[in-house]
């Protein structure tokens, strides 16, 4: 029973999660501020997908 109270999350998992959260936060900041250009998860959504043929116009607007 004494072992049951000794459980703790391994240090490498904590470090891994912290790094992952920092990277996700960084990605969110890049997307929100627009530094990353016209890109983001919304680009993969059906409403913004190729069915609405945005890519041709997207490509055009990038260089217009």
């Amino acid at each position, binding site marked *: 029973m004494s*072992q*049951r109270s000794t*459980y703790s*999350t*391994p240090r*490498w*998992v904590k470090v*891994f999660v912290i790094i992952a959260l920092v990277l996700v936060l960084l990605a969110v900041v890049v997307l929100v501020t627009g530094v*990353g*250009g016209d*890109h983001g998860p919304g*680009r*993969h959504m059906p409403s913004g*997908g*190729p069915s609405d*043929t945005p*890519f*041709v116009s*997207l*490509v*055009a*607007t*990038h*260089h217009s």
Partner: protein
Amino acid sequence: MTRGVRKFALTVHITFSIGWIGAVIAYLALVIAAITSQDTQILPAAWIAMELIGWYAIVPLALASLLTGLVMSLGTKWGLFRHYWTLITLVLTILATVVLLEHMPDVSAIADVAREADGADLAGGLGGELLHAGVGLTVLLVIQVLNVYKPRGLTPYGWRKQHE
């Protein structure tokens, strides 16, 4: 799983996983060639090749890697949710596969433009391709490291199971 079956399944899983990494590197090479080349014929050719590599190499390898990974986890002592390294590997593999499947139609759309529209401006999406392939490759390498080193650490679920 018997020892022989386990070895065979592991060989298949490693083959698909390393193949996935190799295909993404080939994809990255095309993206970089498209970005850096001054040759106007390279750009449409690269998009068409990226679509082919994506649908006929990267997607099948990703799905096969995910499937064989599930078989390996469930058929061995490691399990899917008992150890942090298997759990993180599963989450990252599913994430990479979902993003890949969501992204490939976009690549196909530009590849169609590259085939049909002579002289179309195709450089716009290359930054996104570099980001997708670069981040994807990084995620796959992290998964590979976790799978080779298998760092110790039970999840709360695995810890409970061990003490039952």
